[in-house]
Structure formats: C-alpha cells, structure tokens
C-alpha cells in the first residue's frame, strides 16, 4: 500500500507539480518546434513517453550495476547519453522491422528525441532522487505523460492563435512564446501540491 502511495505521489508530481516542460523547462526544443498542429504534438508526446520509459529502465540498470559498483558515478551524464542514443537507434531499427505501423506513427519523431534533454533529465533525476527500479520506470512514463499534456495543450492554443487578429509584430513565434509563458505560469499553481 505504501509503495502504491509513493508511486501515485511520483506520478502526480511528474505530470503536474514538476512538469518537465512547464516547470523544469526541459525539452523546450520539441515543445516549440513540434507544437504547430495537435496531431503531430500527440505523435511526439507518445514517442516521448515511450522513449522516457525505456531510457529510465536502461539507465537505472546501467547506473546501479555498472557505475555504482565501479565508483564511477561522476560519469553518469556521458554514459547516459551514450546509452540513450544507442537504445533509441536500436529501438528504431527494431520497430521498423517488427512493427511497421508503430514505426510509421513514431518513426520521424524517434531520432528527434535521441538527444532530447527531457530524456537525459529523467535519467539523471532518477539517480538524484535515488528511485528504485519500479519508481524510476513510473517516473519516466508519467514524466512523458506530463510532456504530452503540455505539448498538446500548447499546440491547441497555437492553432487558435493562428487565426487570431493580432499586431503583425506578434504574429507567429513571439505570440507563441508569450502563450508558453502564460501556460507555464498557470502550471505554477500546482507547485507546493504534494501527496505524502
């Protein structure tokens, strides 16, 4: 029961209170780049959930069984980058062969996420918070869900901004950045919101 509550707290934290994009400001590049249309934003979000879950599991194992036992914790960043990049490449090849339909859906987004800082961030945060394996995977999945929530919300706002009648100087990116700022501000409302 206790573990269940811990996992619930981690999930809520990852999705709302410490949302990767809007509170931690990780993974801003795809947030601005792939949020022009809601369907591509959803595709990107699902790919991120998938990769973050996989990366959490893989980096947790590498950290626990390799780095800690050899006393090489200071190499986490470089090793995690290597592991994540190789993993994403491998998964991409595997999907192309085994599940072409999933590859069609995720294919173009997967290489984009290879060196995404949200993915590296989840791996490092897992270590920082000294999560267990299960906790790490849950944190990865829910962190991805938080990413998806933010990017989908933002893309629907942007689609509306396209049609709005605003001063020429604000058209496009300036307005998108202001909207992103306001969205982040609204997510501040969740800070201090803890289940423990």
């Amino acid at each position, binding site marked *: 029961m206790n573990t269940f509550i811990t996992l619930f707290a981690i999930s809520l934290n990852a999705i709302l209170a410490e949302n990767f994009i809007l509170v931690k400001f990780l993974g801003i590049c795809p947030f601005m780049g792939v949020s022009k249309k809601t369907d591509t934003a959803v595709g990107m979000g699902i790919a991120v959930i998938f990769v973050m879950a996989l990366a959490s599991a893989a980096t947790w194992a590498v950290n626990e069984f*390799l*780095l800690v036992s*050899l*006393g*090489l914790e200071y*190499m986490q960043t*470089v*090793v995690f980058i*290597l*592991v994540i990049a*190789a993993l994403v*490449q*491998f998964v991409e*090849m*595997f999907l*192309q*062969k*085994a599940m*072409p339909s999933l590859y069609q859906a995720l294919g173009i987004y997967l290489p984009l996420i290879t060196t995404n800082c949200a993915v590296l961030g989840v791996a490092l945060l897992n270590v920082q918070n000294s999560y267990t394996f299960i906790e790490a995977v849950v944190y990865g999945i829910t962190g991805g869900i938080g990413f998806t929530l933010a990017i989908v919300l933002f893309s629907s706002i942007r689609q509306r901004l396209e*049609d709005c*009648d605003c001063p020429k100087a604000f058209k496009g990116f300036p307005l998108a950045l202001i909207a992103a700022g306001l969205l982040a501000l609204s997510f501040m409302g969740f800070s201090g919101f803890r289940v423990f």
Partner: protein
Amino acid sequence: MEKILYAVLVLAVMGAIFGGVLAVASKVFAVKTDERLPKLVEALPGANCGGCGFAGCQAYAQAVIDGKAEIGLCAAGGQEAAKKMSAVMGVEAVEVERKVAMVKCRGQNHLSKARYEGISDCRSAMFVTGNGPSACPSGCLGFGTCTTACKFDAIHVVNGVARVDADKCTGCFQCMEVCPKGIIIPVTYHTDIVIACSNHDRGANTRKVCDIGCVGCHLCEKQCEFDAIHVINNLATIDYSKCVSCGRCAAVCPRHLISDSNLRTDMDVVPAMQR
C-alpha cells in the same frame, strides 16, 4: 590513475558493445525497400499537395508500386511525371489531360447583405446567416481561403473575387476542397469557353444581387449549333463533349460572362452596369 583507467575502459567497452549491437541490428532488422520507390519519388514534383488522393508523393509512389494506384494521377507533375514514372515501372506512358481550376464567379460588384468583421476566412464567413455575407448565394466571398490552400501561388483574390492563374495551376484542386461555396471547378487547360457564374436563382433575383450573374436568358442556347450549351436550372451549362469552342455563345451573352477566362489573366470583363 586506476580511476581514470576504469573510466576510459568503461566508456570504450560500452561504446564498442553498443556499436557492435547496432551493426548487427542493422543487418538483422534491415527492411527491404523497393529500389523503384526512390526513383518514383524523384519523378514526382515533391509538393505533397495530395491532389492524387494519397497522403503525399511518397505514399502515392508506394501505392503505384503496390499496384493500388495508376500512373498519371499526379496533376502537378502532369505528362512529364507520368512519362518518368512509366519508364521506372516499365510500362507504356499514359496520356494525361491537363486540368486546371476555375472559379465560377466573376461578380466583383455583387451586393452584400451583411457586414462581416470576423476571421478573414471564407469558411468562417459562411456562418453568417444564409451563405455568408454576400447577397448572392453562390458568389465568391473573396476572403482568400483558396489562396491559403494553394501551394503553387496560383490563385489570388483580385478585386474581391478569387482568380486562378492557369499557367501556375497544377490541378491539385486543394482550392476546390476548401472552398465552402463549392464554386471552383476543374476545366481543361486552354478551354476557351467557360461560364463564370454559379447562381441558380431566377433571373430577376440574380439581377438584383449581381451585375454580371447569369440570368438564364437562353440566348446562348439558341445561338449554339452544336447543342452544347443549355440553361439548366436558371444557369447556362456547357457540355464539353459537344462544345467546339466556336465562341458564338460568348459573343451574344448580354452579361459577358461566357469567355475564354483561362487564357485571359487580366480582369477586363466589363461589368454590364456600374452601380
């Protein structure tokens, strides 16, 4: 010293292992792609306009290889693309008739029944009671939704009415898809005789809202020797299988709305009456 050695060793070994695994994986999981696919994609214009009915040039090329689609559906590439694709697929080239879009309205002066100040988009303007702010039920609204949809810079709103530049038009008909009035139609490139009105109202009503709309006077019908033009439901309609482009109907039309619109890119159709 030992620590540095460990660090270097761990990274080197991990790099080597991952490299090896990826190398093996690329062989094991290699997906065979048809070598004709890139050649077909190259033959297509790459505009991904969707005029062929597929999601893009790549999807269309794949469909051709799978035998699900015919060669020659690409309007943008036209005869050129069809020829190249036929060569790649090893079949006889097909003849493609070039089609372009035409806006069946030229009523620059049609009356407005309401003032619309919403989003500058025809689909949005259609929410104004009836069929948009224009008093003519089938007149061009002129907010340029078709201009936005066009990927080839071929349709523009000139004097409040959308107009196709037939030379730039590739016939993908994205404008036709988005036009909420449904007044954009495909015509053969270089067609001389077209009717630039879509109003099916009775003549008296049409006359009230537009100074060049078709009033269904039957003059063109009487003049035609080839039985190719008929007034159907108060609007002159051409049967292109019979029309020989003699131009007699254009000469007698009192509203000057039958013309060689595709050849003429300027807007020199004189409104019958100035308001």
